[in-house]
């Protein structure tokens, strides 16, 4: 359970949602353009050839539907080029069949322009989106100009398509400025979800522990309180000694319950890194021999903790993945910690500046601690970072 998308996923989701919004609006524009011309034709205001101007919008609609199934640069370029050609013929045929339309300052002219402006850039991020929208707007206006000129009409810029362009730029800018502003509250809620479950489990275990206490120490104390003064009965002594043995010299509860006082995991930088990533909304699974962490020196534990933190930050920033796994394994002389995600991945050889963290925070830290780092990554497959460190001599 979680309330809303975490920040690292909301950026991509927001882009996809804006793209869908733009496509739905663009499709309505194209359909309404066709309806407008059809009504005009049926009503006898335009000549029968205006039907053709309706039909020339069909390739645009088809490409719009294809784009809604998955955006690629090639498809977007195809949409803009085909859209420009369709718009040209649409405008030319519309003016040829409708003598009443004297210039291009008309809604029916603006609709395909709006459809081209909206679709190109959405889903790509704010700045790139504005550039795509500008290209779409410019191509569409050029097509309108050529179509109107070919039909012998006056080109007059219309306020509608310009307003649609400015509205889109405004929305993309707003999106860019407001991204990630939810993370603090959301982090608190993600932690609270885990805490709620922790409290439930604690209460469950507390009930079990209380029943155990009742059957052992409490039972013995009550027996001591009720026996006659004098020598401790042999059976009671046996039960008390048995209880004390179970509790251990330190007075701890049954052996099957780990106390963890000597487990470096709970106070480790690595655990804090994982908890912080979970606060950000990343579902991090921990698997393997976690206790292997205790075989590393304190410096190596800290180094691997900070390195894992950087790996998880990379998953949050770059992978687009909702989950990650931190897996432990150990050999005779080394401990390996592996961070795996199933996100976008990257070409390892061409690590760009945004992978600086991987080079500096991961490679350098682990090297200084005497370890090695291996990175496997492929685009759209995910990334695996394996950090291997030698065990502490005394261990």
């Amino acid at each position, binding site marked *: 359970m979680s309330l809303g998308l975490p920040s690292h996923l909301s950026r991509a989701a927001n882009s996809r949602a804006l793209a869908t919004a733009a496509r739905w609006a663009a499709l309505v524009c194209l359909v*309404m353009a066709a309806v407008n011309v059809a009504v005009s034709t049926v009503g006898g205001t335009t000549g029968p050839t205006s039907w053709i101007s309706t039909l020339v919008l069909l390739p645009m609609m088809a490409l719009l539907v294809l784009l809604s199934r998955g955006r690629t640069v090639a498809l977007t370029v195809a949409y803009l080029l085909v859209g420009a050609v369709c718009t040209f013929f649409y405008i030319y045929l519309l003016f040829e069949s409708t003598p009443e339309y004297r210039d291009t300052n008309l809604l029916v002219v603006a609709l395909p322009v709006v459809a081209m402006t909206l679709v190109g850039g959405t889903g790509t991020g704010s700045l790139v989106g504005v550039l795509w929208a500008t290209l779409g707007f410019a191509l569409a206006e050029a097509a309108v100009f050529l179509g109107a000129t070919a039909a012998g009409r006056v080109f007059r810029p219309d306020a509608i398509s310009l307003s649609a362009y400015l509205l889109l730029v405004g929305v993309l800018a*707003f999106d860019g400025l*407001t991204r990630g502003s*939810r993370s603090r509250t959301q982090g608190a809620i993600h932690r609270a979800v885990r*805490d709620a479950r922790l409290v439930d489990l604690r209460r*469950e*275990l507390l009930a079990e522990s*209380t029943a155990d206490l009742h059957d052992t120490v409490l039972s013995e104390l009550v027996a001591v309180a009720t026996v006659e003064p004098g020598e401790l009965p042999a059976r009671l002594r046996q039960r008390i000694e048995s209880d004390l043995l179970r509790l251990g010299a330190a007075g701890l509860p049954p052996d099957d319950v780990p106390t963890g006082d000597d487990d470096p995991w709970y106070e480790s930088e690595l655990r804090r890194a994982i908890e912080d990533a979970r606060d950000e909304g990343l579902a991090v699974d921990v698997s393997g021999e976690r206790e292997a962490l205790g075989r590393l020196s304190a410096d190596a534990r800290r180094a691997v903790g900070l390195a894992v933190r950087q790996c998880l930050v990379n998953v949050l920033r770059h992978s687009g993945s*909702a989950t990650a796994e931190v897996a432990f394994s150990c050999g005779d002389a080394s401990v390996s910690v592996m961070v795996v995600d199933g996100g976008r991945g990257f070409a390892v050889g061409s690590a760009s500046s945004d992978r600086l963290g991987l080079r500096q925070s991961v490679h350098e830290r682990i090297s200084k601690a005497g370890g090695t780092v291996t990175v496997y990554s492929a685009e759209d497959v995910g990334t695996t970072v394996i950090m291997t460190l030698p065990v502490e001599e005394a261990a």
Partner: protein
Amino acid sequence: MSKVMSETIVHYRSLPVERTPQRLDPLGVQSAWLLVPLLGAVAVAYAVFSTVVHRDQLRDPALAGWALAVLVVAVVVAAVRTHPGLPPVGLWSHLAIIGVALAAACLFAAAVWGRNERIQDDWGQIAVALLLTAMPLYRPVAEVLTVAGVAAVVLGGLASAQSPSLQIANHPLVFATVAATPVLALACGGAGYAWTMTGETLRWREVARAGQLRLDGELRQVAARMVAQERATALNAEAVPFLTALAARGVITDEDRVQARRIAETLRAAAVEAVRRSWLAETVALALSRRGVDVGGAPRVDDPDRLEEVLSDEQRAIVGALIATVAAFPGLVPGSLSVSVTRPGSPVFVLTARTNEPRRALRSELVPFLSALQSVSMVASMRVRADGLTVRFAYPERRAP
């Protein structure tokens, strides 16, 4: 569990959940709030510009002025009603906002009636469309599209009725499409955005739920460690040294009998208190323990009827986060944090704390949680005084059957 409690849980858990970003992603919608007044400002600015452009076509300038005033009312209502401090936006708020904007559009149409030259530069359909764009963030897509459809029919009807006076001779229905298109296009755009975002959110919830399940083993270990440490502390205080000494001596005295009874009673009372402690009490204790405050001593949660059990998982998450945030305030007087719960029919939670945090900081930290609580069907408010704060969150009053 009492009958009243069972009924209360059933009642509040069976409230329908709308598929809206406001309901499923309240924090995201809070961060997008500014969009509403911005779109409203664009609508008003365009309306003023369009009115100036129409100055020679105005039949009744006063009416055009009234149209602008009514539009400003619609924009102000939209901006206030969608503010993060006042969620959720309900059906009637939605209808009021669009209804008033539609009335403004009708007034403008009346102001230029018979002298209007073009439909496409009228501001009525643009203003309604801009306000409708933001509505799918707060209301279900089907509802917004229905309202948009009705608005399109009204505006289209007005436009086609003006066809005799228009500059371009065409079929009246063509003018209807000109007026209806911006409304339908922007409403569909907003609906597409909301539908995708809610779909993404629902998919993420499944991923988060699965992740939470996989986390269970790890959390169980942490819980076992906590229980073991608490029990060890309790037993090592008296019971273990006493029994160890007794076993070594091998003799029971009257004093031993008295001491054994007292230790047993103390242990039993502590164990019973620990087992009976509610989720809410544990949450407060956990939050305070994170800042190193001893949670023993006076109870900080007063919930004799266990009304906290009415809280759903979502509500528990927000309440838990709210308590953790208050407990982490540097200026908090730790012993002052307490929660009381009353009224079994419609539970009311009141969190109080003394803190010297600046009022502004308190508001900016806590308002997102109050807004989130309101988005999950609770009524939440906060009062900040010189010496502390009171946060009240409650279930809405149930109507008499």
